[in-house]
């Protein structure tokens, strides 16, 4: 399966953005639980 540079970059960005969102929710839950 061929993946060009753009596609690999897109996959990594998608994973990074979702991970960032999960991290924000984790931080929010920490603040609420304090």
């Amino acid at each position, binding site marked *: 399966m061929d*993946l060009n540079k753009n596609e690999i970059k*897109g*996959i990594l960005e*998608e994973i990074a953005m*979702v991970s960032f969102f*999960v991290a924000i929710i*984790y931080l*929010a*839950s920490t603040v609420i*639980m304090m």
Partner: protein
Amino acid sequence: MRNERKASSLEVISYYTGYIIMCIALIMLLPLMVSVFFKEWEPALDFIISICIAFISGLLLMMFGRQRRIAKGNFQWKHGFTIAALSWILLMFICAIPYRLSGHNSSMLDSMFDVMSGFTTTGLVLSQDLDHMSYGLNMWRHLLTFIGGQGMVVLALTFLTRETGGAYKMYVGEGKDIELTPNVRGTAVQIWKISMVYLVIGTGALWVNGILIGLKPVSAFFHGLFIFESSWSTGGFSSMSQNIMYYHSITYESVAMIIFIIGSFNFGLHYALWQGNKKEMVKNIETQSFFVTSFTACVLVLAGLMKYGVYSDAVAGFRRVVFNVLSAHTTTGFGSVYARQFANEWGDFGIMIMVVVMLIGGSACSTAGGFKGLRVGVVFKGIIMEVKKLLSSEHSMKVYKFHHIKDYILEDSIIKSSAIIILCYVVLFGAGTLLGAYYGYPLSHSAFEAASITGNVGLSIGVTAPSMPTLMKVYYIIAMYLARLEFLSVFAMVGYLGGGIRKACQKLLKSA
């Protein structure tokens, strides 16, 4: 000389339905190979029997409709919708055979329930003794949910060697309407390419994680593969009865969480990001809707449960609350608390928030279920538009837009069609809740389970069990099916079949 007569509707439908069944017969070779690899001879025999039945059924249907091959240009929308809806029903029977032969289900109805749950990426199970299920059958369960997420028609189209006139109509009939490339076969191939790339990445990440938490390499691989298939297709199946709790690992849960959030996104969004359009993630009405509603729901449930002191620290709050809320919102259905804990600890406030997020669901043209963020966003923007119109001058003409892969004008017809589909979901949910209440389940429990079924989620509060009333099992199967195909195809199939029966009756009456 070739027969040039036009193929009848029945022949067209028969040919393509048979084609889709033949594709599934081929897919059954995978669990057969897994069974042979692990020397599970009894499950292997179950699959050989099932493959034979599927192959013969598919072949008979294709032979009946063989006229289709020489007839061109008579593929109509009603054919596409009927093929999509009918193939799901026939496949439910055929794919249930390995389940029933395995002895993990006490009846064929339970087996069909599990198959429909898999196909529709719901994730509720009636199979018993999951912890001792063969690798082959587990492979089959998870493959069903993985294929169901992408769509059986999409799968069949990927294997088609040439473009057919009716391909797009079948594709739309399965509840998908995004066009990634100019032709529908190219779109089907792109959908599978995206899924297969994430299959490699996700399974790899879960495999390494599984080894780190103490699973043996081969076992860790299959656990990783099964959890990926369930996460990506927002299914919620697991090979263990404890579901995701079996792994006792925050990293394992976090990786699964990232996969199921990505899996709940529109294939058009994946494609846009892969093409370098990274602003789409922020601009898209669906992701905006998802981020707002999921964040709000997490905060509300956390605040509600903190009031009762259910979870004492942030890690517990994150693993038990955030995980379950996101699992519900993306319609995945992995549960990190037991069904009874929802009932006994979360209280009515927590349960009602879960009901709302389960009904909203993920993105359109993704593996997720529910109303879909797109429709919620469109209706919400429609309300704002109406309020603004009321407040603005009678002479001002303003065009309202929303962004979903590209800019669309927010027309009344779009708002109306979104509202109608949402209304259908609400009716389905209401009827399910009433049915549960009729059989004596508490109202909040009935609502939770009905939302889980309607949104194709898979979380349970304890209502779904082999001992539940038969009528509820049948209703749940129909509800999962209707919700997954987004009503239209099933209504078209019922209308088409009803029309056919009426014509046949009229002919009989005339001849009599």
